[in-house]
């Protein structure tokens, strides 16, 4: 056994909050060898990012290592002085942060920053910089060198960061949620790149992520963190196959996996919430949320036990942790109930163009303002008591679509009909009844509730305003609403600051459901939530739909969630629907090449999109996907919009490539995965 590059010994890190110090990382020990990728997973508040920063000796000023040591190649880092630490940062320690734009200097050209990072003689450094940019598959390094950070796309920025992190021979690489701010297709490419470069440069790598799928793909070993402690460490495959800690198991069971359906398979969320750093339970930190916990767990803190040579877990009853949830057979799923749902809402050729800001000079020259087509003719049908998933990356127009439907934005043209009656484009013109029928839950639960109002007040208002109740009647309805979203009745007097993210989203859902809308628009309503919370909200949505008969328009970038929750799916790309149909049909071959890329993004052998800086600048007339299409499109794609093709069963695809051809290539790809 070689000596590990990184050894962390009993590390405890605390933040100073007001007068007290709160330990957010406690007694963490781990080792990472050369070329090894240690994944660290955990929900928000688990202390994983702090651990990363502590290892890099880059804690914020309020943070402090209280105990333990960090060794890099046998050198202790904790006591290093300023200059030695800077030398270490320059040569051995590297970080790829979550937000590349924040990490790059906005006033310096990329080239300058790279050359500075590489150091040494300028001409050599320049040549090296171009090389590393090539190495991260940037097609035009010279141009990128001349660019300022904001001129690059998010994916490009992250590639530059990776180039900076991986020039020379780093010993330790810390990846802190490196792809969280990126689209799935870009994320896939960046993960591929990281895997490739780590394999080549062989640094010891720590990969911090909340995304279990990504960790499973990239990490050789995985550590699960909970409330500042490592609760389970094991090689990745065994960990995911046979978790030996109830928390790991809970995380895995929270994930909506292929083949699971909302109407047959409720997810298994972890009850409760992660304890605050100041309020840790006496025994096992996970005990309050654990179904296996007994007196002993609440009393006695378990230590990290080695159950095999490489598999450690912090649980008294690890043997009772059952095997992973058995996958139900695919055949078990069927078309959803109530397939005969009547049409609730339709749109006809909905468009929305947004004028960009124009310089005064251009205005004076009489240039027309440049416009962006956020929606380019969307036809949509939502049925009663059905869930329509809308899938697409950022910029695909799915949020604009929802905002047009609800009336927060006015479409440029096209019509929206609710129960066959045209809806006014502006929310001000809609009747209270129309407003009542259509409600929306927004993406960010942190902003969904007014911090100044209590939960009760937040729920009261729609009942009074849209439900035409008086205050007393409305007040009586509130406990019922809280029950509907599974919140205790005493939450009525709480303020948003006293709620967790998941609880806030539940209140937001309760508020939207208060007046029994016919259609609830959910715009990325679960994507900001941790997996365990997300599972609970998904269950909740399924249950509420069953009980109230409400329809959902569910907007997400996460295909796993869509396949779990939606009855029908539309896939959007740059303001257009490129594929639509029942969910089982749409997520099985034949697929639109874009859907294919989305679907396989989570796999290392998936189809990757071509990266273009401004995908919309050309091909106004042809297929919007033409320039990024991985399936070598023909010339016609560039000039004429592709037709709709019917794949049967209500499944339609907008592509020139014959459906049979798509089916053949894609079946082989999907089988390989």
């Amino acid at each position, binding site marked *: 056994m070689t000596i590990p590059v990184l050894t962390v010994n009993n590390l405890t890190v605390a933040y100073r909050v007001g007068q007290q110090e709160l330990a957010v990382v406690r007694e963490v020990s781990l080792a990472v060898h050369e070329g090894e990728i240690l994944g660290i997973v955990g929900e928000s508040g688990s202390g994983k990012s702090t651990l990363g920063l502590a290892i890099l000796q880059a804690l914020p000023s309020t943070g402090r290592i209280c105990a333990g040591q960090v060794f890099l190649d046998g050198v202790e880092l904790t006591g290093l002085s300023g200059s030695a630490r800077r030398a270490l940062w320059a040569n051995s320690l590297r970080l790829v942060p979550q937000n590349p734009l924040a990490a790059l200097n906005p006033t310096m050209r990329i080239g300058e920053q790279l050359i500075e990072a590489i150091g040494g003689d300028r001409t050599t450094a320049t040549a090296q910089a171009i090389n590393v940019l090539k190495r991260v598959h940037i097609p035009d390094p010279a141009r990128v060198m001349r660019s300022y950070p904001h001129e690059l796309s998010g994916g490009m920025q992250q590639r530059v960061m990776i180039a900076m992190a991986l020039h020379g021979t780093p010993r330790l690489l810390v990846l802190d949620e490196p792809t969280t701010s990126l689209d799935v297709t870009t994320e896939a490419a960046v993960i591929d790149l990281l895997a490739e470069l780590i394999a080549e440069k062989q640094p010891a790598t720590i990969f911090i992520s909340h995304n279990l799928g990504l960790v499973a793909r990239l990490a050789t070993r995985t550590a699960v963190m909970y409330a500042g402690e490592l609760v389970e460490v094991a090689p990745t495959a065994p960990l995911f196959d046979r978790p030996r800690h109830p928390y790991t198991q809970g995380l895995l069971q929270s994930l909506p996996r292929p083949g699971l359906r909302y109407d047959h398979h409720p997810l298994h969320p972890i009850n409760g919430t992660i304890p605050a750093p100041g309020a840790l339970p006496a025994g096992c930190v996970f005990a309050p949320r654990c179904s296996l916990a007994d007196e002993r767990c609440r009393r006695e803190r378990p230590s990290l036990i080695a159950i095999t040579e490489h598999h450690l877990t912090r649980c008294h009853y690890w043997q009772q942790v059952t095997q992973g949830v058995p996958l139900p057979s695919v055949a078990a799923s069927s078309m959803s109930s109530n397939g005969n749902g009547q049409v609730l809402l339709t749109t006809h050729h909905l468009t929305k163009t947004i004028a960009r800001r124009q310089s005064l000079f251009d205005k004076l020259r009489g240039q027309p303002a440049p416009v962006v087509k956020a929606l380019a003719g969307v036809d949509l049908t939502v049925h009663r008591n059905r869930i329509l998933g809308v899938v697409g990356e950022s910029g695909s127009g799915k949020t604009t679509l929802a905002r047009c439907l609800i009336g*927060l934005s006015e479409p440029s043209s096209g019509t929206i009909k609710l129960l066959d009656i045209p809806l006014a484009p502006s929310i001000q013109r809609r009747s209270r009844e129309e*407003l009542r029928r259509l*409600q929306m839950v*927004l993406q960010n639960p942190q*902003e969904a*509730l*007014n911090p100044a109002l209590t939960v009760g007040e*937040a729920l009261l208002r729609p009942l009074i305003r849209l439900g035409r109740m008086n205050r007393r009647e409305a007040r009586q309805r509130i406990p019922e609403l809280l029950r509907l979203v599974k919140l205790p009745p005493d939450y009525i007097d709480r303020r948003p600051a006293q709620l967790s993210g998941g609880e806030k989203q539940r209140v937001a859902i309760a508020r939207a459901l208060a007046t029994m809308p016919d259609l609830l628009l959910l715009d990325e309503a679960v994507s900001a939530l941790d997996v365990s919370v997300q599972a609970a909200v998904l269950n909740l949505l399924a249950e509420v739909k069953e009980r109230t008969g409400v329809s959902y328009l569910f907007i997400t970038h996460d295909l796993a969630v869509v396949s779990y929750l939606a009855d029908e799916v539309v896939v959007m790309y740059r303001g257009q629907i490129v594929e639509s149909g029942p969910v089982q049909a749409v997520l099985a071959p034949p697929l639109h090449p874009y859907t294919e890329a989305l679907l396989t993004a989570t796999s290392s052998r998936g189809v990757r999109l071509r990266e273009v800086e401004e995908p919309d600048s050309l091909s106004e007339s042809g297929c919007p996907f033409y320039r990024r299409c991985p399936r070598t499109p023909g010339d016609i794609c560039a000039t004429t919009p592709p037709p709709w093709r019917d794949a049967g069963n209500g499944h339609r695809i907008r592509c020139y490539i014959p459906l049979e051809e798509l089916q053949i290539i894609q079946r082989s790809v999907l089988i390989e995965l």
Partner: protein
Amino acid sequence: MKLSRFVRAFFADLATATGTTIVILFLGLALFGPLIAPYSPTRQNADAIRLPPSTTHVLGTDRLGRDLFSRIIYGARDILLLAGGGTILAVLSGTLIGVSVTYLGGWLEELVFRIFDGLLALPALLLALLLLGTVGPSRSGVLLVIVVVYTPIVARVVRSVVLSLKPRGFIEAARMRGERLGYILWRELLPLVAPTLAVEAALRFSYAIFLVASLGFLGVGVQPPSPDWGLMVLEARNEFALAPWSLYAPAAAIALLVIGVNLMAEGVRRAIREDVTR
């Protein structure tokens, strides 16, 4: 923020408590002035000119034989009323304009805030002199000056808060249930603007005290024989060698009150920030 917490914020630490105590002291002087003041603030005594501080005249008398202590006390009433009233009016109008115009947005916002920018481009004192030159020096003129000078500042502060709140989900949720403009402005936005406003009002108040005193000193504010502190400094300026106390008394009063308000405002600002970040 609960009321008790809010009150406690004024005594959070020694500096803040000192500031609050000073302000309360002056408020007391202003409120109960007639009960405390030994003489009328304008009563002259040709036989008691420029008396140094003594038991009969605690702070001495000025060149016309007026009791300085009484003048300081009545002056506190004057300056607190003018600076306080002006600040309240400015905060009200600034909030009204800031919240509604910013929420409505569009050309109206553009127009209003361009005008405010123009006003802000002028130094406050210059603007004050211009205004008072037009309306003539008087109490109401000073009040108007404070309102005109501080409304744009308050409106801009409010605007920045409203701009950050406007795209928030809860505002959109309110629109989605068809809430009227008034409800969104006053029930959803105002409570969130309030902490910022409290801080801003306290800050404006301390500047307003200074502005009132400055205008008095320049002779364009409150007119004699009002016991305006700034005016008293102006009048005592030439007599410094003869009766230094007649200069010290109003100067110290101004300094003490401004320091008090500033200490208090700083404490409140810190308390509210802590409350928000909590």
